[in-house]
């Protein structure tokens, strides 16, 4: 698929695609990290043998009754709190529909009285996306299709059903239609994922389906009412989400420009052809006959419980980024801070600073050199602090620091000064640096002539030659400065 349009900055409503404004609402389903299911005591575990995590409730056996898992409520409340929602007394409803992976032929979900309402999620750039609700519901089983082409449902000759996933607790997080670009959609899901991991509510793995994202997409001319929306399903990665939204927006614009109308329907994102396809047209027949689940009683979390969840909230990614930004002076939504906070290594960066290191250099090194490390790198913070100190004092160059860092990381720690010494790293003193630069000018006459003649591009070749001659010991910035001063 060719790039349809280039997303602009992630704020504001001013981004138009061929004169159309994009409106996206996101529905994200996350499986909660409980030990057991939402309404029964079978394990909530991914990857087990088919139909081994089953019980009368899971299978919808006659006579089985649901009983609510307290921990699922706790995790759902954590999500609501993290998304700035109001936690309210709520009820469960039955959503009635027939499907082979839905054992009771109804899904227990929350309807007009959800647990969490009226919150928002703040994107790294500061824009707030409204969260209409985040409610509890149960997951379905899994169908596998046989006899068709490539495991698809269409043209299959039969299907096999595994109910291990049936009854796994889900929270469905419904955003308001505040998303205006595919990039904002990606940021929203990415930020949401960070929040879910931070509060321990879900492992949020899109590839395993423990986090699933549907996008409601519509387009309209500025000032006109919102267009008819289509719901896009089967988006299995954050990258696909952006692609799917971009494709769908383009499709709808082409329909409208061609004088046709957009039909309200559910569409399926196909990763292989990069298109969305009609899954199901909304019909009158969609009649879920919602009614209050008579086998369950209302849920009204006490003020004490709500407060306890609030008190136990860990620092969320946004606050972590702000903290690191304040410490380093780097932008909170810049790549380094985004990456380091996502890896959970911001505490470590601050620990390096606390150990006397330079926080700015620590941020860069952790971002560049700790990709394979977890939230708690094995390298002692003091060792990294030692490295940044050598750098800041000019004892070694940035290039040398990288080499030392690689060795420290490989060994799980080490004395930066000792390693630098062993490698013969020492910053050149000003006298020998100048002598070396003079030698480089002498050896590279033509380049120097070009540079002096105003060809700034020639500077690069000269710096490169100097770095080579110094065997990496020269500080690139100092070399550049020297060359510049010698030209004038």
């Amino acid at each position, binding site marked *: 698929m060719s790039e349809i349009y280039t997303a602009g900055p992630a704020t504001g409503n001013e981004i138009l695609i061929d004169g159309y404004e994009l409106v996206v609402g996101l529905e994200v389903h996350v499986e909660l990290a409980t030990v057991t299911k939402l309404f029964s005591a079978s394990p909530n575990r991914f990857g087990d043998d088919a139909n081994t995590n089953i019980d009368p409730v899971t299978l919808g056996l*006659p006579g089985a*009754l649901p009983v609510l898992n307290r921990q699922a409520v706790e995790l759902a409340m954590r999500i609501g709190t993290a998304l700035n929602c109001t936690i309210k007394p709520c009820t469960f409803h039955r959503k009635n529909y*027939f499907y082979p992976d839905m054992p009771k032929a109804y899904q227990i979900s929350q309807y007009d009285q959800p647990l969490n309402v009226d919150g928002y999620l703040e994107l790294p750039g500061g824009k707030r996306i409204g969260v209409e609700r985040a409610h509890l519901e149960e997951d379905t089983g899994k169908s596998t299709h046989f006899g068709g082409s490539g495991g698809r449902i269409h043209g299959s000759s039969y299907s096999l059903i595994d109910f291990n996933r049936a009854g796994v607790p889900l929270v469905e997080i419904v955003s308001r239609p505040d998303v205006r670009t595919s990039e904002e959609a990606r940021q929203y899901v990415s930020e949401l994922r960070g929040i879910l991991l931070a509060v321990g509510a879900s492992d949020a793995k899109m590839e395993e389906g423990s986090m699933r994202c549907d996008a409601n997409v519509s387009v309209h001319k500025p000032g006109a009412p919102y267009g008819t929306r289509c719901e896009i399903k089967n988006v299995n990665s954050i990258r696909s989400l952006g692609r799917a939204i971009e494709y769908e927006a383009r499709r709808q614009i082409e329909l409208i420009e061609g004088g046709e109308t957009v039909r309200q329907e559910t569409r399926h994102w196909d990763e292989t052809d990069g298109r969305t396809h009609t899954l199901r047209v909304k019909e009158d027949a969609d009649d879920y006959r919602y*009614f209050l689940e008579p086998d369950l009683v209302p849920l009204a979390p006490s003020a004490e419980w709500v407060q306890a969840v609030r008190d136990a909230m860990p620092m969320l990614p946004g606050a972590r980024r702000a903290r690191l930004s304040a410490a380093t002076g780097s932008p909170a939504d810049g790549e380094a801070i985004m990456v380091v906070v996502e890896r959970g290594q911001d505490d470590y960066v601050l620990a390096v600073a606390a150990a006397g290191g330079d926080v700015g250099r620590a941020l860069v090194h952790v971002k560049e050199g700790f990709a394979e490390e977890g939230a708690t790198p094995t390298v002692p913070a003091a060792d990294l602090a030692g490295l940044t100190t050598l750098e800041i004092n000019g004892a070694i160059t940035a290039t040398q620091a990288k080499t030392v860092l690689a060795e420290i990381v490989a060994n799980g720690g080490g004395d930066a000064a000792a390693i630098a010494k062993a490698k013969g790293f020492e910053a050149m003193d000003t006298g020998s640096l100048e002598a070396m630069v003079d030698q480089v000018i002498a050896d590279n006459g033509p380049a120097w002539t070009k540079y002096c003649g105003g060809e700034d591009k020639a500077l690069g070749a000269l710096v490169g030659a100097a770095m080579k001659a110094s065997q990496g010991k020269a500080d690139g910035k100092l070399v550049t400065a020297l060359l510049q001063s010698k030209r004038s």
Partner: protein
Amino acid sequence: MSAASSPQMSATEIAAGVRSGRLKAVDVLEQHLARITANESDVHAFNLVLADEARSAAAAVDAAVAAGTDPGPLAGVPLALKDNMCTHGIATTCSSKILEGWKPPYDATVVTRLAAAGAVTVGKTNLDEFAMGSSTENSAFGPTRNPHDLGRVPGGSSGGSAAAVAAGFASVSLGSDTGGSIRQPAALCGVVGVKPTYGYVSRYGLVAFASSLDQIGPFTNTVEDAALLLDVIGGHDPMDSTSIPDPQPSLRDAITQGVEGLRVGRITDLPGGADADVDERLEAAFDALREAGATIVDVQVPAFGYGLTAYYLIAPSEASSNLARYDGVRYGLRVDSSDTNSMYSATRAAGFGEEVQRRIMLGTYALSAGYYDAYYGKALKVRRLIADDFDRAYQSADVLLTPTAPTVAFEFGSKTDNPLAMYLCDTYTIPTNLAGHPGMSVPFGTGQAGMPVGVQVLAGTLGEPTMFRAAAALERAMQQ
């Protein structure tokens, strides 16, 4: 022709005898099995007789007594279970073709509690399919006959359980009551039948008809036996979210207390329609309680008469959802077809009988978009009115007396062509289910054709002890 049997011993006496070693559980069982052998082919109380299993269980009870262990408060009591309660490895059909042959992989909570109390299950009893009916004529496996007159219905839906006790096939039985399905057949078969407060007995393992109305309760020969059984099967169950968490007082203690000073309410605006013989017995019941020291007071329950409508919108709505799971995927009948949707429709059309299909249709309609407010939503408000009216009545009365059923047992086929006429059998029992209150039917003499008449005693939420006091007084009056 009659197959009714007057019991030599109550369940209370059987359990006491077995526990003390004076009686052998196996002997008690054989007496009951002998009556089954003699008369079950006429009565058809059972979908399944568990003679071998019962003999093993009875022998185990005797062995326990011999070993000096107490088998429990129902030691050796022969018991019949309505065939809508799950029994592990034993067919549970709900008298429906859609579940024919299905053996649940788990036990209902009541089944577990009864077994732990030493009861001996002799069989699974016939019912109107999925408990929908008032005559047991809606069973896919043929009707049960009233032991007092084999030409008449036993009532329903728990007709098999009522008939099993009336015929002496079992000392006690369990039924389920959604709109009168214990009390009405108890009245028609001349036995005691109790619908406890909603949440008093666990519904876990009871195949659901209408979840907000269903309650399990006992059929017995005596009020004391009913108290004994409820003491065993009642009480909190963590597997049922609607189970009342607070411990309940023993009902056996309540029945000895008498009715001196008890305020017994007469509903002056009770819908008419009961036959004269039934009304006559109700008057006799008021007289008996007055003589026993109770005060008769007039009360009004204006919304009582709207119960039928509210019930026939709420119960089918819940049922339409509860019965959606019979889709041929995981258990029960499947009619093979080219795709899942046609398989569902073919399976359900073949597996459900006419009345069940009718109620699924009614309930689906009442819940569907555009009709919810007019039907289901409105019925829930009527339900509130009825409960509020009862609450007001219970401010001036401790219990209420009504007929249990408008008529004595009727003849087969007399109401099968007119669903509404059949529904009217539940006029007096339905409001109790809507309010979630307890109610029980006590045999109180006979009416037309010598058929039994029951009087219904009603009480407010968790008013079982008071209700049992009044019921015991009526029973004593009949014995005098």
